[in-house]
């Protein structure tokens, strides 16, 4: 079955460093993949979408890569700030319903 895996352990990094979050998917090839940010007690907020024919996408301090051979997407935040602390969700499209399938998310904690 289709599976999305994100590192369930929290990622702790120092302010100013680059945070890299990983999303692996198995048993299918999504046409595109989205990344969302979720703060405690709130709904997810869309950050970036990357399509299968795009290797990399950037938006301000954010960068997403999409390696269809490795079946992996990497999400980078450069010059991280404490305000970047949140849970980040990977969501490739797929499944029996051809809708977004959300990973469980990775909690990022940026220490000042």
């Amino acid at each position, binding site marked *: 079955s289709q599976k999305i895996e994100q590192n*369930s352990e929290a990622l702790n990094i120092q302010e100013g460093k680059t945070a890299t979050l990983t999303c692996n998917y198995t048993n299918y090839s999504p046409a595109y993949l*989205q990344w969302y940010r979720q703060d405690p007690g709130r*709904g*997810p907020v*869309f950050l970036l979408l990357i399509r299968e024919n795009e290797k990399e996408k950037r938006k301000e301090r954010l960068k997403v890569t999409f390696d269809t051979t490795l079946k992996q997407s990497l999400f980078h935040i450069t010059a991280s700030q404490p305000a970047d602390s949140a849970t980040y*969700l990977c969501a490739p499209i797929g499944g029996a*319903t051809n809708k977004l399938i959300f990973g469980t998310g990775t909690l990022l904690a940026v220490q000042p």
Partner: protein
Amino acid sequence: DVKVTQSSRYLVKRTGEKVFLECVQDMDHENMFWYRQDPGLGLRLIYFSYDVKMKEKGDIPEGYSVSREKKERFSLILESASTNQTSMYLCASSSAQEGEETQYFGPGTRLLVL
């Protein structure tokens, strides 16, 4: 900006009660979704709708039903609430236009079934 609102932030119900969760979006989106989010399981799709009066089952529809009588409103109904339906419920909407697949989420309703 797109706004998706949910009728309640917190709700406490008793086992066996019928529960209605309401969601309203103001961007004329065709698609609307209901998810539940549980620790360690992520967001799971319960039901979605492509248009008024249209509904499709998601990955975990059992124990739930939905209603979409107007384009801007999508309701989730728990016919007879059970304790295993205690969860965070999130509504989302998106446009049906190609290239506009972003989902916009409401703030969520935290439901506790006693």
